[in-house]
């Protein structure tokens, strides 16, 4: 390819969501949020939940000093417009759902690969390629002679291996290489699961295309209908449809999936598998489940499309839709001509008949009893809020209390008194740190004083705003004999 053609191609790609995400000013932030919200755990999240989670993340980012000035909704809207998010309204759902677009997933994967320390040219990858090539060569070989020769060679190899094992010589892959291979397989399977997204997107696009062609293109419609009526499932026969179908059959084949399960069990039971990290192990353990789950989703979508599309054509709904389309256009044009002659809130002789009944029986009248709406207007002065020792522990942990001054106060007071409660201390030394002082005394009292079980005392102090505050705190006494602890 000549450079200028390549430049044009890259320029085109740069307008695509994948590149746009990578090139965004705050790409690290966006990518991290998208990955955390929609890739790592759940992949489809209802709108309200996404907004809520994002709002929480943003809050946390702000606390860490990141500049994220806008609301969660605004970010979601922007990401949607940039093509990184997709919004769907699935049948039966009460909320719209968000998920990452295929392009966004591509960008996140690319970023992940930059970070990964795994070298790409691994032995296992090469072995995989060789194995695949050999298999391809075999499967495309139509010559019975060379085929036989190959099978015999294979048998010889197997025989040799059997002989070795019989003699007790077993060669086991060393841990490092086993680990490397396991990771390779995980990466491959992960990509595979991701590919389903592409397949589903393809189906959706195909479905849309078919429908549009059926409604709009008079010439092609004949062929399409013929094919459909002949029972040919166009989507399933498409390239994506066929390859997915083959994949799906393999996955749901009892023998094959049994093999897969057994292999996963065996591998995760091996010693080297202990060195895989938690995520990798769990991915392997749930491999069949993940593949079935994501594949099953695509499978359902495919079935749904095929059925609906057939129904759409067979019910001749498209004819009705064409007619409706024309009627709507025509009627709208007429309405446009009327806009100068009829005021917009003027009635026209047209009534929309609704589907709910009007039942206004006299029996629905209820006498109004004024007592039911009466509110008790009396105001009772509330007791002070109770502060337990557990609360105090938490509050002390979270705040900076000047314990030195507090200790000095108690120390000084115990010079003249045999014992004093926190209320008495506050009487002599007003709470300079507000609630902090009170909590500080309670903390000191529970450490150095004596608690009277199940007894409380009311205390009050003056807040910064000048108004009085009250609380009920556990009754604690500071004792003269323990005065020295407070130095």
């Amino acid at each position, binding site marked *: 390819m000549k450079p200028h053609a390549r430049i044009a191609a890259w320029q085109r790609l740069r307008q695509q969501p994948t590149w746009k995400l990578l090139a965004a000013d705050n790409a690290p932030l966006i990518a991290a949020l998208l990955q955390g919200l929609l890739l790592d755990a759940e992949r489809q999240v209802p*709108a309200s939940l996404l907004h809520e989670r994002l709002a929480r993340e943003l809050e946390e980012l702000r606390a860490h000093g990141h500049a994220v000035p806008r609301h969660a909704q605004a970010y979601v809207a922007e990401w949607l417009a940039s093509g990184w998010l997709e919004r769907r309204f699935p049948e039966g759902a009460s909320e719209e759902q968000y998920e990452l677009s295929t392009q966004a997933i591509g960008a996140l994967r690319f970023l992940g690969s930059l970070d990964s320390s795994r070298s790409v040219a691994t032995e296992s990858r090469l072995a995989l390629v060789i194995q695949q090539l050999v298999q391809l060569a075999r499967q495309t070989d139509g010559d019975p002679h060379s085929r036989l020769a190959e099978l015999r060679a294979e048998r010889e190899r197997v025989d040799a291996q059997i002989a070795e094992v019989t003699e007790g010589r077993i060669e086991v892959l060393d841990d490092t290489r086993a680990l490397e291979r396991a990771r390779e397989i995980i990466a491959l399977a992960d990509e595979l699961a991701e590919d389903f997204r592409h397949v589903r997107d393809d189906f959706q696009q195909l479905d849309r295309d078919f429908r*549009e062609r059926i409604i709009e293109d008079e010439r092609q419609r004949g062929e399409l209908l013929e094919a459909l009526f002949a029972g040919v499932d166009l989507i399933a026969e498409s390239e994506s449809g066929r390859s997915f179908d083959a994949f799906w059959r393999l996955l749901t084949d009892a023998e094959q999936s049994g093999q897969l399960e057994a292999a996963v069990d065996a591998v995760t039971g091996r010693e080297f598998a202990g060195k895989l990290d938690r995520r990798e192990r769990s991915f392997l353990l749930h491999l069949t489940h993940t593949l079935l789950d994501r594949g099953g989703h695509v499978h359902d979508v495919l079935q749904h499309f095929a059925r609906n599309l057939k129904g759409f054509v067979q019910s001749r709904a498209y004819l009705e839709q064409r007619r409706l389309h024309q*009627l709507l256009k025509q009627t709208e044009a007429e309405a*446009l001509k009327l806009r100068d002659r009829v005021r917009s809130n*003027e009635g*026209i002789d047209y009534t929309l008949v609704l589907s709910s009944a009007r039942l206004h029986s006299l029996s629905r009248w209820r006498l109004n009893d004024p007592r039911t709406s009466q509110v008790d207007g009396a105001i009772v002065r509330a007791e002070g809020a109770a502060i337990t020792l557990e609360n105090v522990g938490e509050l002390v942990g979270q705040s900076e209390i000047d314990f030195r001054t507090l200790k000095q106060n108690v120390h000084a007071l115990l010079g003249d008194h045999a014992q004093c409660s926190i209320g008495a201390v506050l009487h002599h030394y007003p709470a300079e740190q507000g609630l902090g002082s009170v909590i500080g005394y309670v903390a000191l009292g529970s450490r150095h004083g004596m608690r009277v079980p199940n007894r409380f005392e009311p205390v009050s102090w003056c807040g910064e705003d000048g108004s009085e505050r009250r609380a009920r705190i556990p009754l604690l006494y500071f004792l003269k004999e323990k005065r020295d602890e407070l130095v």
Partner: protein
Amino acid sequence: MSWSEDMPSPDLASPASERASDAGLFPGDSGSLPFDARRVLCQLLAGPSLDAERHALLWPVLLREEATLRARLCELFLDLVLDRDLRVAFVRQADTGELEAPTLLRSSPLTFIDSVLLLSLRQRLAEAEAQGQRAVVEVDELHAQLGVYEPPQGTDRAGFTKKLNAAIEKMKKNNVLQPIRGSEGRHEVSPTLKLLFSAEDVQALGAVYREHLAGPRPGDEVVPEEDD
């Protein structure tokens, strides 16, 4: 004659129709439908629709008792519309021809702006259907789209916006538009609009427009609020 009340009444004295009421659901119940079927009937009458998603328990009852329910509704001059593909059912006034039957259902006289909004929503529903999707509209989008119906010499932009908002509210009240939870300003166009406002109805509306175009009407009266 209170002395006889404690006495077991002989079977001969109570005809079969009364005996059914012995098993009635409440004192004085002379109906014969099972409880569930009556709930379906109430839902249909209360409207605007009964759909399989929202009324998962009632939907199978409706399918099972369809014939009986149809009969009961006919006694009220109502016709049951049941769309098994859309999985929705509702009632509409039966076509009684010459017979002047009372109307039990509510109706909503439309203003000009209501009618163009309705057209636009119907259009959106048709497009969404063609793509096999649910129809979602955004309030801002509706304002942009319907701006063309503002008289060109009109200077009261705010007034027009207000009227359009009122029309949108009216559609919400009539369940033609349903707010989507979690997506502010976005609404789903109820799939039942397809049945409430069919191609024939669009045609009829077109005819009304043409009448208005043909002769200037002197009366400029504003439509009263809807009759509920």
